């Protein structure tokens, strides 16, 4: 009977209290991410919705007058939303072709040694703090833009001069900031295309360039789309880099207008806003949050699709 208590079949005795405690603690840790996302969603909703009802949903989302400090304040954020959409779209239009071409260069064209130098450099680009991009934007892009502005609108009396802080500057900074994301992910996608695709194409007599553009890139399509979606998320959520580069007034998003993005509106007005103004800023945050969630859902379904394909 004595020996039985040492048996591995002992059951209850073999699992000590520490074991149970460890399992419980790790389970709690595991659910922490769920808790965080849930509480962020709840807090964004509860602090963003009051202003919607106080000002009126249509007035706030489709109003085009932003005068939070006036005697009769008006909180229309239509132009702010439009600016974020237009700005992000333009940044994607500029950044994605350059990024995808660079990733083609790294994965297909460049000699191994050169690629080994360029790739870490690109990764480094991703690690540079966003305020530094903003600093360079102010000191390099804005003066150039101001010169352009002075030339283009020389005789114009209706144009409001911005000193170079305009939509184009912000878009260029954003395009630069999504480059590392796009390059890294598309390069991984291009590299995961099986070698025999290339061999088959080359054997059929296609040139290297034809192989890249007609075989490799279509095969890596889902990865490149993932890169674009991630880039969109990064561009729409970027705040500090463009907050001083994009100017400081709410305007229709036209190239030489000083504009305000969803993110920059929050950054630059949060410090002094109070009362209803502050609540409206949280509504802007909520709009941004909804955009991001949409992008996340798209991304998730893309990844799932890609995963299923690989499983086959």
């Amino acid at each position, binding site marked *: 009977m004595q020996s039985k208590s040492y048996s*591995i079949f002992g059951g209850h005795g073999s699992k000590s209290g*520490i*074991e149970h405690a*460890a*399992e419980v603690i*790790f*389970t*709690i*840790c*595991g659910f*922490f*991410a769920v808790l*965080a996302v*849930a509480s*962020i969603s709840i*807090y964004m909703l509860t*602090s963003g919705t009051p202003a919607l009802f106080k000002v009126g949903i249509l007035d706030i989302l489709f109003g085009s007058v932003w005068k939070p400090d006036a005697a009769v304040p008006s909180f229309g954020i239509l132009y702010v939303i439009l600016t974020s959409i237009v700005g992000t779209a333009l940044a994607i239009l500029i950044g994605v*072709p*350059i990024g995808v*071409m*660079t990733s*083609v*260069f790294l994965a297909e*064209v460049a000699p191994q040694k050169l690629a080994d130098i360029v790739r870490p*450099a*690109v*990764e*480094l*680009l991703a*690690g540079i*703090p*966003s*305020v*530094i991009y*903003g*600093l*360079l934007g*102010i000191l390099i892009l804005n003066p150039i833009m101001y010169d352009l502005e002075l030339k283009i609108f020389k005789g114009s009396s209706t144009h409001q001069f911005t000193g170079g802080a305009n939509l184009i500057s912000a878009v260029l900074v954003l395009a630069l900031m999504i480059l590392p994301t796009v*390059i890294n992910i598309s390069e991984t996608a291009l590299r995961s295309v099986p070698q025999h695709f290339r061999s088959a194409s080359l054997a059929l007599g296609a*040139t*290297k*360039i*034809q192989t890249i*553009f007609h075989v490799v890139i279509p095969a890596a399509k889902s990865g490149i789309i993932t890169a674009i979606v991630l880039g969109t*998320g*990064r561009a*729409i*959520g970027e*705040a*500090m880099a463009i907050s*001083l580069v994009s100017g400081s007034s709410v305007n229709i998003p036209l190239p030489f207008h000083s504009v305000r993005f969803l*993110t920059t509106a*929050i*950054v630059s007005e*949060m*410090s002094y806003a109070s009362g209803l103004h502050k609540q409206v800023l949280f509504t802007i*945050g909520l709009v*941004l949050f909804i955009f991001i969630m949409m992008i*996340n859902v798209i*991304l998730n379904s893309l990844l799932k699709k890609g995963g299923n394909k690989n499983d086959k």
Partner: protein
Amino acid sequence: MTNDLTIPVHRDSIILNSIYNGKKRVSDSLLTALIYLCALISIFILIGIMGYVFVRGVSQINVAFLTTVPSTIKGTFGILGNIVNTLYVVTITLVIATPLGVGSAIYLNEYAKGGKVVRIIEFTTETLSGIPSIIFGLFGYVFFGTTLGLGYSILTGALTLSIMVLPLITRTTQEALKTVPESYRSGALGIGATKWYMIRTILLPSAMPGIVTGIILAIGRIVGESAALLFTAGSGYILPKSFLGKIFESGGTLTIQLYLCMQKAKYDEAFGIAVVLLVIVLAINGFAKYLSHKFNTEAKES
């Protein structure tokens, strides 16, 4: 004899139609040029950024710049206070986020039975890493700052950032745990170790280089973060009076100070801080690279 060319073909046609002297396609050369152009743009931008910041900023760096705090009376400008704040934020964030992130990865990899629960946790982790820092800033401001009453303080900032770097640590730890061979687990369990004992003595030490790489990447993210800290940690630049009391005071990190300098158009100081930040980021990147490289070669050898 089989190698002999026996097929009767016209000599000229061989030379003319050979694939070795086929004519170049114009579109091919154009696209090649385009690829090279884009790669050049990317590389040029990177070198340009680094070069420009260093050229403008290096002259700003001196002993006084690194060892004093801004003072209108003495007319000095220094970033020591911000450096100390950054260290505070990094340390507190890591103390909170590392156990949570590593624990969550252990749960996902070792305890969870798969299925819906794991899918939900992985989806939320994915979502969390996609949320922009400004949203974390707003959430931290409302939840930690107002609801929990911590106000603008280093603790508020650190708590906010812990949520932000959580997915990063979870994911790198998970990757590291996945590379530990299954035989280690069965071996340890087979000789009678309990699960927690096996995790503590076998799994965690084997996965340690991967976990450390994740932590270093997290430090890089924290050092470069600004939008999430603006409304949570505030912008104080005074040196701490007491070691623990500082946690509940406002403190701006290097990036926040850089942003404030930009706002006040003090570009020279801004470039000085930018150089310090770039050096830190470079060092962190290099260290992470070195560690993961070492880890990979070790894994291959064993």
